[in-house]
Every structure is written in C-alpha cells, then in structure tokens.
C-alpha cells in the first residue's frame, strides 16, 4: 500500500515541476517585477538597475527559475508589495479563514447530500425523488456566482439574517470569536453546500438504484434478509464507499469556488487575497497562490485515489 502511494507521489513530481515552471514564466510575463514592492520609492533609476543586476534579474530565465525554486525550498515565497509583508505570513492568515469556510462547506455538503441521495435512490420515481431531482437540476444549471449573489441579496440584505462582509466581527472576543466566525461562514457555507451537493446527490442516487437491482441484493433477499437490513448492509454500504472518494475531488471544487465566495462575501481568505493581489499586480503573492492551489488540487486527487484504493477491495492497493 505504501509503495503504491509512494509511486503516486513520485509521479506527481514532474507535474509539480512543470507547474512551477509555468507559474514562474507567467509571473515573468506579468507587468512589474519583484522589487517594485520592496525598494525605496526615492531610489534613482540607476540604483534600481543596480539592484536588479545583483539580484539576477538579467540572468537567463532558467537561472532565475532555479534561484526562485531554491528560495521556495527555504520557505521564502518573497515579499508582498501591497502589504509589505512576507508572502508566507500573509497566506498563513488567510489560509486559516479559507480552511474554516471550506471545511464547514464540506461538512454541510455531505450532511445534505448523503441523505438526499440515499432517499432519492430508495424511493426512485416517487414524489420525494422528483422533488430532490428538481432541486439538483435547478442548482446544477444556475452558475455558482449567481446563486451566491442572489443568496446574499435575499438572506443578507433583504432579511438581514447574516452578516454580509468579513470573517470575524472586530468587536468579538473570547468565545464570541468562535460564534462570530460561525455566523460569518454560515450563509456562504450553506450556499456552497447547496451547490456542491448536486453531483454527489446524483451520483449517490444512481448508485443506490443500480445496487437495488443488482444480483447480490437478490441473493441477499433469497437469504431471507429483511428489506431494511438489505439497505443497511448492502445497498447503502456499497453506494457509500465510492462516494468517499469524492472527498478529495471536492477540494478542487471548493478552492475554485472560494474565489467567488470570498469576493462576493468580502471574506478575507485566499480567494479574495488572490483577487486583491491581481488588482494590485502583487505578483509574488499571485505566483505563491497559484502554485499552492495547484499542489492542493493534486493532493486532492491523490487523496481520492488513496481512499478509493482503501475502501474498494477490487482495486485495493497492496
């Protein structure tokens, strides 16, 4: 098992190298350079020129790339021009916020999706199934950001039930911090979950329906297993296992969605940091974020493969 995981990880290495080169070249192509932020505004053009020279900005790109990678390995992601702060510190703070929101969304997603999918599959063709299918159909069609904007408008502004910006109320302290945090992530989390359930519900539903008509369920019936136990021991179990593997892929979706969620709810996480950095051309932050999101995507896929390998004996990795 460890061997297979190690192999998977080794296959990832060339992908990460390729990603880092791509990100580096994109960063080079962006307007501005890494010194725009850190140098003294009163320096003369000649001084800047000198600084660029000694910092290797005129070296061939592969030389520069190498230097950059070496810095990366020392945990040095560079300086943010906008915030005058080490990028690693900057991202650290925001990552905590994004993690809170993502984890919360994911928990909500599964809490909603699993029962809905199981229920719809069990009662295939009946009224509750139709209702669930209409729900998944509608949320599947509407673009995510439109759901967010309308959700914010209705529940944030019209009903005024939830805060519309920020991550924690600045006046909160003690236990209040936690409750304030929850208050802020409740609406975006719910809307994200509402959107995120769609695929899982549909997948789950068709898994349950397939399992229901499978031969092994017929075998179980002929063993005299009561209906509710057939659902418990055979159908639900067999349909849940492949779902477990969805977890890793959800990370990718959540990260991509975080850019919209955080911008619309002015939630200071990594997604919003990215948009801000783009607007200020703060490109050390941008490269760091793109690289990080790429690696997280990769880890998500890896996680999914590992989970699937563990839960399904047919492809069990040993």
């Amino acid at each position, binding site marked *: 098992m460890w061997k297979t995981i190690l192999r998977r990880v080794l296959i990832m290495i060339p992908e990460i190298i390729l990603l880092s080169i791509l990100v580096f070249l994109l960063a080079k192509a962006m307007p501005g350079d890494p010194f725009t932020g850190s140098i003294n505004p009163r320096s003369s053009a000649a001084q800047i020129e000198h600084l660029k020279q000694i910092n290797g900005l005129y070296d061939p790109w592969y030389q520069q790339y190498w230097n950059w990678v070496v810095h990366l390995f020392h945990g040095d992601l560079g300086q943010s021009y906008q915030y005058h702060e080490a990028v690693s510190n900057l991202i650290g703070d925001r990552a905590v916020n994004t993690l809170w929101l993502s984890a919360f969304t994911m928990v909500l997603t599964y809490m909603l999706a699993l029962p809905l999918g199981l229920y719809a599959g069990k009662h295939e063709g009946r009224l509750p199934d139709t209702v669930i299918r209409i729900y998944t159909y509608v949320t599947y069609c509407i673009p995510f950001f439109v759901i967010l904007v309308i959700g914010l408008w209705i529940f944030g502004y019209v009903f005024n039930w939830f805060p519309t910006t920020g991550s924690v109320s600045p006046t909160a302290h003690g236990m209040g911090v936690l409750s304030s945090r929850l208050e802020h992530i409740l609406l975006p989390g719910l809307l994200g979950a509402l959107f995120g359930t769609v695929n899982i519900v549909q997948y789950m539903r068709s898994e349950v329906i397939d399992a229901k008509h*499978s*031969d*092994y369920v*017929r*075998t*179980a*019936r*002929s*063993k*005299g*297993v*009561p*209906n509710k136990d057939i659902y418990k*021991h*055979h159908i639900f*179990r*067999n349909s849940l*296992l492949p779902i477990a593997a969805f977890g890793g892929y959800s990370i990718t979706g959540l990260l991509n969605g975080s850019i919209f969620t955080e911008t619309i709810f002015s939630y200071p996480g990594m997604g919003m940091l990215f948009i801000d950095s783009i607007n200020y051309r703060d490109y050390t932050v941008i490269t760091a974020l793109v690289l990080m999101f790429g690696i997280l995507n990769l880890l998500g896929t890896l996680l999914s493969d590992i989970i699937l390998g563990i839960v*399904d*004996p*047919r492809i069990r990795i040993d």
Partner: protein
Amino acid sequence: MNEENELLKLTDVSTAFKIDGQYYPAVSHVDLEVEKDEILAIVGESGCGKSTLATTIMGLHDPQTTQISGQAVFAGQNLLEMKEEDLNDIRGAKIGMIFQDPLSALNPLKRIEDQISEVLDYHTGMSSEEKHARVIELLNQVGILEPQRTAHQFPHELSGGMRQRVIIAIAIACKPDLIIADEPTTALDVTIQAQILDVLRDIQAENHAGIILITHDLGVVAETADEVAVMYAGEIVERGTTAQVFGDPKHPYTRSLLRSMPQGDMDVLHDDLYVIAGSVPSIEKMPQTGDKFAPRIPWIKASAHEEEPTMHEVAPGHQVRCTCYQDFYFQRLEDVDQ
C-alpha cells in the same frame, strides 16, 4: 405421488409482467410438485419463463410490476400470499437459492465469510465462533480446498467455479428442505459444471433436500434430474420422469428440441441439423389463447391441435399438453420447410 414426501406443490401458478401499462403473462397455469430427495428439472429455451417461475416461488418480484396468482404450498403455507416478514423466515432457511452468474450474485465488497454467515445471522442463534466453524464446514462440504483462506477472500479473488461453490454454500447453510438452482452451471466450463453438479448431488444425498434445477441444457437434465418439466412460452408442455421424457418424448416441442441437438455420427460436410420452424414470439406478441407451439409445426393440421390445450396422461406420471402429439411425426429433413 407420496403425500408425505411432498415439499412444494404449485397449483395454477401464473406470473404476468407489466410492460407499458399492460400485463403480459410470463408464466401461465403451472402445476408442479417437488418431493424430498428428488431433483426436478425445469428445462426450456431463453424466455420460456423458467427463471420467472423460480423467482415467483421465492417471492423476489416487485409487486408493483408483477401480477402473481395461484398457489405454491410449502410446509402447509401458500408462499405466494405470505407477508414479506414471514417469507424472510423461509427464504434462506427452508428454501435456498442458487443463481446463474456467480460473480454478480456475490456482494463485491464483502468477504466470503461475511456473506455466508449472513444467512446464519438471520436464521440461527449461533455465536460467532459457531458461525465461523459452520462457514468452514460448509466451504469444505462444497469442495473448497483451503476453506480458511477462502473465507477471508473477496469474490473477485476467486475463480468462477469457486464462486459458484460459495453460492451453493450460502444456499445450503441452513440445511434447507428445498434448493432452487437457476442455471447454476451456465456460466461455467464443462469440467467445472460436472463438479458443481456432483456437489449438488452430494448435498442432496446428505441433506435429503428436494432440488429444482432450472436449465436450458438437455444434457445436464438427462444426467442429473429425476423428474423433468419442459416449458415453452410460459407453460409446461410435457412432464414425467427423466427416462420417460428423454426416452419417449411426446410433445412436438420436446421431440424437436432433442432432434435439433448435434449428433456424433453425422457427416461433417453434408448432414444438417433439424431446425424448428419459426421462432418464439416476444412476450408482447405471444398469442394469449390456443396452442402456443402450433404455429411452429406447420405440417400438422390445425384441427389436430386442441383449442385450449390441456394435460393428458400418456403413461403413469408422464403428461403432455395438447393431443397434437398423436399426429406428430418426423418427416425427412428435406421436407421440412423452413
């Protein structure tokens, strides 16, 4: 027939499926008895309703899309009218079932031991040690060489023959009085088939169970069964002991079927096989009344067929549906118009 030995008695059993809002009969008016220590074979080609009959007895149909009538009396109770909970006490305990495709009939995500002991969970009060011992005993009984190892494996790790043995182990776990085997060897190689049939015979000898063997393979029937019922288009057209049905087939369908088997002494290049004219109509197009096989024997006059065929006893225990057998004879092959 010995009343005491009678295990299952089917009277006028019919099953109809709903297709596009209308019911079409898949099994009609079947009368059958199975006794202890007896292998009853139900034989017929695909779509003749033999598997449907088995699943009807086991109550495995969705009541919303099937219509079932008649009686299937087992241990004094009519299985076809029993409540699901009561049926669950019989299924697996008193009646075991063996399926055709041994791979899909096992849950791919559960170990063999769990799948066998699941039957014991519901029908015995065994402790987990007792259950484990019984699983090993069963695996031994069905001829699995390394029962301890196999018990711990998953279905995909076993060969087709091994999987079928596991299915049999599940079916006999509670020593049922009746075993229904639905095409138990169709998916297997001939040598494995022979072994599986041996296992079935041994088990029967040991448990004194009755077996309903459903198959399309006339050879398997001739080698294994004591009694035979031949089905065509949902009806039993001929029944009797194996010796009667194979030694002196009466119904034109049985005779044609036996005749169309390849014979060893035929010339490779020039001898053709006998072919039954026409084909089995689909369930929607099947005539609802009259002799359903009549259109396929064009050289018998229509008047020779009974309007509504009934069973006729031609010898003790040997019955044929319709009197047309009296007019049936094989013509020379060249005369048979295809």
